[in-house]
């Protein structure tokens, strides 16, 4: 009986350690994806706004997700003309679905980031394709489209006009 219990404890420890390591790897990978996205968005902003009219602030926020627990992840705040736009990682294990490129059936994305002024919202879905990130942008009215510089500029204009 004692051996069985000892065995049980050992198995539980191994299981929790494995889950913890898996969650950490997933969170680290998600954090890197968000950092790459933010670097791209900053680059687009630098090209359009070399004098820094739009003030960019990055801060770390706590997010809690099932099986991933509580983790810290960056978010961006853009401020210009008395307006605020947040670019906010919402979830790595999102419930939101979209049709990834070259696929017709919607599926759960591998991450979600929202662009919002708290009144309106655009959703960025992340899919992984051959080891690289593909981001789609959804205005929640029409089908999600690939995120590119034009799409990002249109979103910012819609908030700042």
């Amino acid at each position, binding site marked *: 009986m004692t051996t069985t219990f000892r065995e049980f404890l050992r198995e539980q420890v191994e299981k929790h350690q494995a889950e913890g390591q898996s969650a950490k790897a997933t969170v680290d990978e998600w954090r890197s994806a968000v950092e790459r996205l933010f670097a791209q968005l900053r680059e687009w902003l630098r090209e359009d706004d070399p004098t820094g009219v739009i003030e960019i602030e990055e801060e770390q926020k706590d997010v*809690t*997700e*099932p099986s991933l627990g509580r983790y810290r992840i960056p978010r961006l705040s853009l401020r210009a003309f008395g307006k605020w736009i947040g670019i906010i990682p919402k979830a790595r*294990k999102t*419930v*939101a679905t979209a049709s990834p490129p070259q696929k017709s059936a919607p599926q*759960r994305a591998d991450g*979600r980031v929202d662009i919002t002024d708290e009144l309106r919202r655009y959703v960025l879905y992340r899919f992984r394709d051959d080891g690289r990130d593909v981001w789609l942008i959804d205005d929640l009215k029409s089908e999600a489209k690939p995120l590119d510089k034009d799409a990002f500029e249109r979103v910012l204009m819609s908030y700042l006009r």
Partner: protein
Amino acid sequence: MKTLAGAWNWYEATKRNLRRMWRLGSKYWAHPSLKDASIWQDDQFRMLEASDIVAETTASLDPIDDLAVIVLFSVFESQVRDHLALRLKPEKDTLKDPILTEAAADALRGVEEGSFYRRVLCPLQAQGLVPPDLVEQVNQVRKYRNWAAHGRRERDAEMSIGTPDVAYKRLKDFLAKLGIAIEVEERESGGAE
């Protein structure tokens, strides 16, 4: 909410359901086994992430105990005032002497609108209707209610009443001493699981 039992049922049901929702968000919400569930066709839920559920339920749960004390005491206070006013009014109406009528009117105003401590708790203690230690315990709940309702500033040691359970028990005991029916109100407002 008109009765202490009704307020208590509200508190328990609200806290229980917030905790359930928090658990749903923190443990199950985005689980792959629910991927094809019909809930994702509902606009209320299809863009709702686990992190939002956890953040919002945490924000709701944080002040719930203080809010419960505020609500419990408000309902209790109004029950006590109503009970005493109902007892005083018929006696006041029988008085003929203007001095006594005026004094009774003042007493009634005090019970209905005056300081709950000075015009209600103290007289009840002085008349021996409620034991001094119970009056003091209820007064501690009153002080805690005031402190919580005014932004939790300048706490003093007297305000430690523990949890809303403690407040509820004290207020319930007080109502019982005044003969305010607790059993009936509990039956009428009995919350559903």
